[in-house]
């Protein structure tokens, strides 16, 4: 404005340059941030350091400087993008509606492309996980099966007790105790490819997405999801082998693989065949909803991707939308206290906050107690526990403190990453009674079963 010559500022990308990454991005997305600062109090990393660089507003300023050619994309820039949790709490706080998810994904992808954080070990791990393991459902199942055998056979206990665990490199050793306990069964052995409601005709035909991590460590959540959908008049389709959704890839700057995985989904289960596509994991759902944008420039897939995104529903959202049946109280079970931890990508990524609570409150015997900072990240954030262990454990401790303060016996949450992080947190900061961590639909399925004396 009338700021004087020294401060006047009229930037913008020069059109004649060939641009990629941030510079190629629609400049209005960067300009959308008017740096009012209302995001700052909700940003966990800004709260940790008090430094602007570690805030959404600061990161956007860095991105804009890169797009304007005022800042080289440096290692420090890449580290900053990696320090961001990607929890998207800032997007809930932002009145201006800045699309921070797109900004962060673009910045991370560009930093990855320029190999700013490249180190031999990191590249191998990235390739093994993102490019190999999480693109091959069969291989993922095999790893899950092996881990399960290792845990069920007592080898894990032996390994830990004999001290052999100390032979592992430090970083891996620190993570070993948080290895998730594997399920005995994958979803495919618990759920038939097509299941129909027991009584009456189906009102809806829905597709259930089982997720990779959830399928390995908590297939009973997928079973419960199918149960509650059947109970509410849905014919449920659950293909046995499903591709990974690609959220891990996008959050770690690997757009190409994410696109391939999205196309596989659209080929295997065309959205036209269903009334709704159901996700029960906050992190996956948030990404699955964005297939339309991910494949917008692919003419062969864009229309199907748009339909997919339109039909994608979080399970709680869908149940409330179709008017789920409130379970009838059965017997005289004691009251149970429950607190709800909001998965970042469910509440901030998908803006689903009210519906899970509505479901929990409808369950007979459940008393819902709100925890402080329920919408704050628990530190899990995809692979954040591996990339930023210090901040991840600070957030975990903070979260566990707030959850304990409620005195609730049960912590309900709807994302496998949060589920693990909170279970591990209770173990790590053990005191008194250990609350149980469950998915809200598991509680609802249980209530339906109890009606029938199950």
């Amino acid at each position, binding site marked *: 404005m009338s700021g004087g010559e*020294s401060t006047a*500022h009229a930037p913008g990308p020069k059109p004649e340059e060939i641009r990629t990454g941030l510079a190629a991005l629609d400049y209005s997305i960067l300009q959308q941030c008017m740096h009012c600062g*209302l995001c700052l109090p909700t940003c966990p990393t800004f709260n940790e350091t008090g430094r602007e660089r570690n805030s959404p507003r600061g990161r956007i300023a860095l991105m804009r400087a890169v797009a304007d050619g005022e800042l080289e994309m440096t290692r420090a820039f890449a580290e900053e993008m990696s320090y961001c949790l990607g929890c998207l709490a800032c997007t809930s706080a932002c009145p201006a509606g800045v699309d921070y998810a797109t900004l962060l994904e673009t910045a991370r992808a560009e930093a990855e492309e320029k190999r700013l954080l490249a180190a031999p070990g990191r590249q191998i791990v990235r390739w093994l996980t993102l490019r190999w393991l999480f693109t091959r459902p069969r291989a993922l199942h095999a790893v899950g099966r092996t881990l399960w055998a290792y845990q069920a056979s007592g080898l894990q206990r032996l390994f830990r007790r004999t001290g052999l665990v100390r032979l592992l490199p430090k970083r891996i050793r620190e993570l070993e105790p948080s290895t998730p306990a594997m399920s005995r069964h994958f979803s495919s052995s618990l759920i038939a490819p097509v299941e129909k409601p027991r009584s009456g005709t189906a009102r809806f035909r829905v597709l259930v997405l089982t997720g990779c991590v959830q399928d390995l460590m908590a297939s009973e959540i997928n079973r419960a999801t199918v149960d509650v959908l059947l109970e509410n008049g849905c014919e449920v389709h659950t293909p046995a082998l499903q591709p990974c959704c690609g959220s891990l890839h996008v959050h770690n700057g690997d757009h190409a693989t994410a696109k391939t995985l999205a196309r596989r989904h659209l080929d295997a289960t065309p959205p036209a065949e269903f009334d709704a596509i159901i996700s029960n994991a906050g992190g996956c759902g948030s990404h699955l909803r964005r297939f339309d944008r991910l494949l917008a420039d692919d003419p062969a897939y864009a229309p199907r991707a748009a339909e997919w995104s339109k039909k994608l529903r979080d399970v709680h959202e869908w149940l409330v939308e179709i008017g789920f049946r409130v379970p009838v109280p059965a017997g005289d079970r004691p009251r149970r206290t429950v607190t709800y931890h909001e998965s970042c990508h469910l509440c901030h990524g998908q803006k689903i906050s009210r519906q899970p609570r509505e479901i929990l409150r409808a369950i007979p015997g459940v008393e819902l107690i709100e925890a402080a900072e329920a919408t704050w990240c628990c530190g899990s954030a995809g692979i954040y526990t591996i990339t930023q262990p210090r901040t991840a454990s600070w957030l975990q401790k903070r979260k566990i403190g707030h959850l304990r303060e409620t005195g609730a016996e049960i912590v309900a949450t709807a994302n496998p990453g949060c589920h693990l992080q909170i279970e591990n947190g209770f173990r790590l900061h053990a005191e008194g009674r250990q609350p149980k961590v469950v998915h809200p639909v598991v509680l609802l399925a249980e209530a339906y079963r109890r009606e029938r004396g199950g």
Partner: protein
Amino acid sequence: MIENLKRLVGEPNVLTEKEDVLPYAFDGTAAVKQMPRVVVFPGSSAEVAAVVAFARERRIPVVTRGNGTGLSGGSVPLPEAIVLCVNRLNRILELDTRNLTLLAEAGVVTQTIFDRADAAGLFYPPDPGSMKISTIGGNVAENSGGLRGLKYGVTRDYVMGLQVVLADGSICWLGSKCVKDVAGYNLRDLFIGSEGTLGVITQVLLKLLPKPAARQTLLATFARMDAAAETVSAIIEARIIPCTLEFLDRKTLLCVEQFARVGLPTDAEAVLLIETDGHPAAVADEAQRIEQLAREHGATTVKRAANSEEAVRLATARRSAFSALARLKPTTILEDATVPRSELAKMIRFIADVAARHRLEIATFGHFGDGNLHPTILTDERDADEMHRVETALKEIFDFALSLGGTITGEHGVGLAKRSFLRQQLGDDSYALLKTIKRSLDPDGLLNPGKVIEPESTP
């Protein structure tokens, strides 16, 4: 220089790398930015004094900053300046429930002060739009207003004392816990609203009030802007002073509702958000009379907030108005020209006329009850031609506000954004007095130079 600063405040509290300091190049003001040379985070008043003394010795300008939410460019750096960020000074030092005062360091967030008082059954009324993240030091330096200004006044009305570091590094305490205190010149008030140009505020002693026993929020919708303005005049004429009397036009309503989803009517031309607080009987009576007056003056609907949660949601939604307007255009220029309440209708019509004449999109919202308007120009800083029209429009708005006996800024401060209009408002003699004060307190011109007062053309 950097080594010396590190010695004074500790190595981790000095930032110099480009990626670290670039995010301190701006505050909440549109279209102004300047890279600082270094950002320092002192941990105590003594460290602030040491940094200021060092800067004077080396003749380096110092720009004080809290959390950078200012709206007139007050904390935007200057070339080669040290940015002195007070957000490590974040302790509430004392809550005195016998004298109803609270002593806080400058970097404490306004919301934290409100919450702390609230938990003790007390009330800190000033509530600037950015209170969730603005610092109390910044509020005092800018003399911030807020939604409750009509009944409760502004930040100045709650400052009983403050600690300030002068340009030579000395530390002064001005004011006391006494309700009456006339010892010496009232220098405390000189520093309130001084925008970092006279000293660095490091501690603030605040006055608290008992928490009002009851409050009621009403939302009235209007099909015509004039009807809303007439309702406001009728309320004031009826000798009712509500706690807040906020106005939003249609454009603002749409944006705010898109973000906050609190059920604001998006088909109304104008909305008044009114809150009355105090003794339950008085609140009930006032709410009743306000509702009646609104209906008599053409309100289409009048709704009452069902409970305090809904009232808080509505107020929070209103506070997001400025940022929510950024949804429409890339650049959002917020102004706060203010006129005596009796002239509001004229001012609003004039703003509409300016927008039409200069082909600009202007949304208006603001504190109707105290005449403090926020005409907000929605534009694009990359469009040079339009930016030129924006400059002309702003000049006309300021000129008109002054001709009505108003002011160029009601609550955001002069900073960089309005310094070229200040002399016009004050007149030559008063402007010269400002300069005399600045020279005597900051003879080397190192404290936030170029803010409020325009730099001399000849040194």
